[in-house]
């Protein structure tokens, strides 16, 4: 009975979303307050209905209701309870329902925290989000219904993909989706601004924390995904330039550009058309990512089951939403160059360069991801460009960003002064060069590692020098407003991330070895002793579990237990053992027994020594934290009265745009 209720909730949610899309937009266009007032209650209603549907599907998993096809295909009575919750997201239908739920959450949040905005703007923003919601709910109901029953009910489910039976994946999808969907807010704002034919600094100020939070969620989602791939896939890599990874990375890159462009537009009034275009792009790329993952157009290691009907549906939806927005942009984008003038050496220029680099990087990733498809289209055969293409172009595009980053905060709006920049160049430059020279001796002259140390020092010293300048020059209490502190944190994160990438890539040691019990292998100062394999069992798997004791000198560092698990349907899954540390990770993966009949004998093992690999995710976390701290700035949360009076005195109002 319950699954049918879930079905009905979804259908009702679709109806409510249609109302939320139609009435407020119509009301805003015709200036009918009653219609505009539908937006908020509709948003709440939708959250209630989609939340109910999600809760019912989760319930079906928890109680092992194998009469529901989706549950039968993705769960199993042996599955531990925790993973029954995550199994909801284990395949296409459930993760799509999560998409809809996260969208409903964001929509309700907008309805709640938009008191400072004029009603027509709220109506338009919620209306546009309603359009997006209609698309996703219709997609669910018509092509991907999670509540379909099978009669007679299956006696047992098929099991959740063992790769997904992992704690890291509990938070990864919701965070990723929160990021994707969060970009719907600046997107809806941009469309509302185009429909209103004006961009108000107040509204933009209101949008900025939404962009920041969405981007921070996406950052965390991507970092978690990368961390999961690192310890779960058993080959020690953290990023593979796989189409699905790229799908999440493109909106992230555009998100970085958008965050900075929004700051320029809000504070100086310039780059208005660009900010609007980036808002459209960030969300479009989120939708595109969904399309690429689910349409089967590109094959990927973790693509969902593909179905041409679904592909056609999302493509039509994408065409309407993105094509429509870009057409609206072409017709309505501000034509006059607005904003305060700026010189070549200015903060605006620095932000423009970084914007350009991130936008080009996103385009580069898009091109690389679509290359196989282009190859098919031009009849060149299946060409896939892969890591060499990305690994060459991406660092090249990010090099100017790393070099210019410390200058950004030192530059003033409009016009920067050269002496301050020279001083910075001298101080941070000398520090970076000195550390690089010292490092060169420690890392055997590995150029990548030296570059990593230099980049780290250059970025961190640059950021700290600016923090010091604020400390000296500003009165207490105004030194580090949240917006400033967030920026500093995120920029520090860039330094930590770059150092982690370059150091771990250049100094890692990998060893594929055959080891009999009692034998040892040495990597650097670490001694890995293989103590054999024994059999062990878990709730829904059996495993061969190895024991590897790591010692350094006389000190025992860790006893590691890599496993090779077998799940009920015969799927084999390696569980690597990782001993994490600030300066290095030790990583052991169990391969195959040398003799299949002698499990107690010698095994193939893979040993890794990965210095500073954790800094990659630490950098990501710092960036995420920066985004969140920035969003918490009080400046973004104006009371209604303040918003109205401040808006009246704002220069941007005078520069409203006409098509």
């Amino acid at each position, binding site marked *: 009975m319950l699954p049918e209720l879930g079905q009905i909730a979804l259908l009702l949610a679709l109806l409510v979303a249609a109302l939320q899309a139609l009435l407020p937009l119509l009301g805003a266009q015709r200036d009918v307050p009653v219609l505009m007032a539908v937006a908020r209650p509709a948003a709440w209603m939708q959250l209630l209905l989609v939340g109910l549907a999600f809760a019912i599907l989760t319930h079906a998993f928890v109680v092992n209701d194998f009469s529901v096809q989706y549950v039968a295909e993705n769960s199993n009575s042996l599955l531990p309870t925790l993973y029954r919750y995550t199994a909801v997201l284990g395949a296409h239908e459930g993760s799509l329902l999560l998409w809809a739920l996260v969208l409903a959450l964001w929509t309700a949040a907008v309805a709640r925290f938009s008191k400072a905005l004029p009603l027509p703007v709220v109506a338009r923003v919620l209306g546009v989000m309603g359009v997006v919601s209609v698309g996703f709910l219709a997609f669910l109901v018509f092509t991907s219904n999670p509540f379909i029953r099978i009669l007679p009910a299956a006696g047992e489910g098929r099991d959740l993909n063992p790769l997904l039976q992992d704690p890291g994946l509990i938070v990864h999808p919701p965070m990723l989706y929160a990021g994707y969907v969060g970009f719907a807010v600046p997107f809806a704002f941009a469309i509302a601004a185009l429909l209103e034919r004006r961009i108000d600094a107040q509204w933009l100020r209101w949008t900025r924390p939404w962009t920041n939070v969405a981007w921070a969620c996406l950052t965390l989602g991507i970092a978690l995904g990368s961390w999961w791939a690192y310890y779960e896939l058993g080959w020690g890599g953290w990023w593979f330039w796989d189409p699905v990874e790229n799908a999440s990375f493109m909106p992230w890159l555009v998100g970085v550009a958008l965050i900075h462009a929004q700051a320029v537009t809000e504070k100086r009034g310039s780059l208005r058309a660009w900010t609007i275009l980036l808002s459209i792009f960030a969300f479009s790329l989120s939708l595109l990512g969904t399309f690429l993952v689910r349409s*089967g157009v590109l094959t990927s290691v973790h693509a969902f089951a593909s179905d*041409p009907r679904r592909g056609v549906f999302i493509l039509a939806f994408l*065409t309407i939403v993105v*094509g429509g927005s870009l057409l609206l942009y072409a*017709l309505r984008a501000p034509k006059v160059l607005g904003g305060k003038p700026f010189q070549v050496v200015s903060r605006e220029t620095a932000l423009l360069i970084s914007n350009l680099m991130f936008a080009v990087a996103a385009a580069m990733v898009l091109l690389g991801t679509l290359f196989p498809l282009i190859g098919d289209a031009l009849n060149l055969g299946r060409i896939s460009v892969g890591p060499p293409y990305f690994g060459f172009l991406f660092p090249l595009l990010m090099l100017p960003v790393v070099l210019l980053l410390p200058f950004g905060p030192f530059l003033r709006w409009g016009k920067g002064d050269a002496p301050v920049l020279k001083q910075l160049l001298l101080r941070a430059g000398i520090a970076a060069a000195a550390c690089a020279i010292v490092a060169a001796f420690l890392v055997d002259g590995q150029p990548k590692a030296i570059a990593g140390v230099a980049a780290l020092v250059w970025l961190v010293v640059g950021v700290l020098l600016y923090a010091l300048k604020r400390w000296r020059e500003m009165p207490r209490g105004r030194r580090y407003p949240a917006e400033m502190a967030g920026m500093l944190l995120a920029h520090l994160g860039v330094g930590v991330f770059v150092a982690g990438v370059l150091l771990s890539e250049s100094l890692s040691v990998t060893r594929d070895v055959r080891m009999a019990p009692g034998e040892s292998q040495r990597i650097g100062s670490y001694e890995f002793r293989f103590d054999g394999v024994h059999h062990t069992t878990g709730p829904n798997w059996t495993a061969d579990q190895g024991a590897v004791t790591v010692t350094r000198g006389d000190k025992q560092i860790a006893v590691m237990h890599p496993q090779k698990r077998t799940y009920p*349907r*015969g799927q084999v899954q390696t569980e690597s053992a990782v001993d994490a540390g600030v300066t290095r990770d030790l990583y052991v993966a169990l391969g195959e027994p040398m003799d299949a009949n002698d499990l107690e004998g010698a095994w193939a093992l893979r040993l890794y020594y990965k210095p500073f690999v954790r800094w990659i995710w630490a950098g990501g976390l710092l960036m995420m934290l920066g985004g969140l701290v920035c969003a918490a700035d009080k400046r973004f949360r104006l009371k209604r009265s303040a918003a109205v009076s401040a808006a009246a005195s704002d220069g941007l109002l005078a520069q409203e745009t006409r098509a």
Partner: protein
Amino acid sequence: MSRLLPFIGFMLLVGLFGFGIWWNTQHDPNAIPTPLLNKPAPEFNLPKLYEPAQTVSKADLLGRPYLLNVFASWCVECGVEHPVLTAEGPTLGVELVGYNYKDAPDDAKGWLAKHGNPYALLIADEPGHTAIDFGVYGAPESFLIDAKGVIRYKHIGPLTPEVVAKELKPAIAAMLKEAP
């Protein structure tokens, strides 16, 4: 005009994606090409399921074409496939050889007792090593092997009436026509 550029660029992308969807309907993206297709089947020597003392090798089966069907009692989709095999098996014109994959013999026998046995011959690969030589991804899978021991057709996943009519039977017909 320059403001139309993003729109035009996007429409080009849409065209590319539309092409991609069309292309995938023409070319099955899930068709994993087996390097063994039209090559001799790998050598094997496996015990019979019901008489484990006796083994069956590839050489024993030379001289007559057969359909090697990989199945297991733990495999849910095999239960879906089973009625199709039972119904269509006698009409195929080749023998059905059951390849019991990574299964406890007693489970397999129980499963066959419950659902019926459409196979002319049953071999068991409990450790699953020989299946690696065949490139088996998972059960069910089916290999059509001709009288000379060459793999003529392979299907991953359950044989449905549609697959049998549209793919398997034409493949059998082509094989029998070639070597009567």
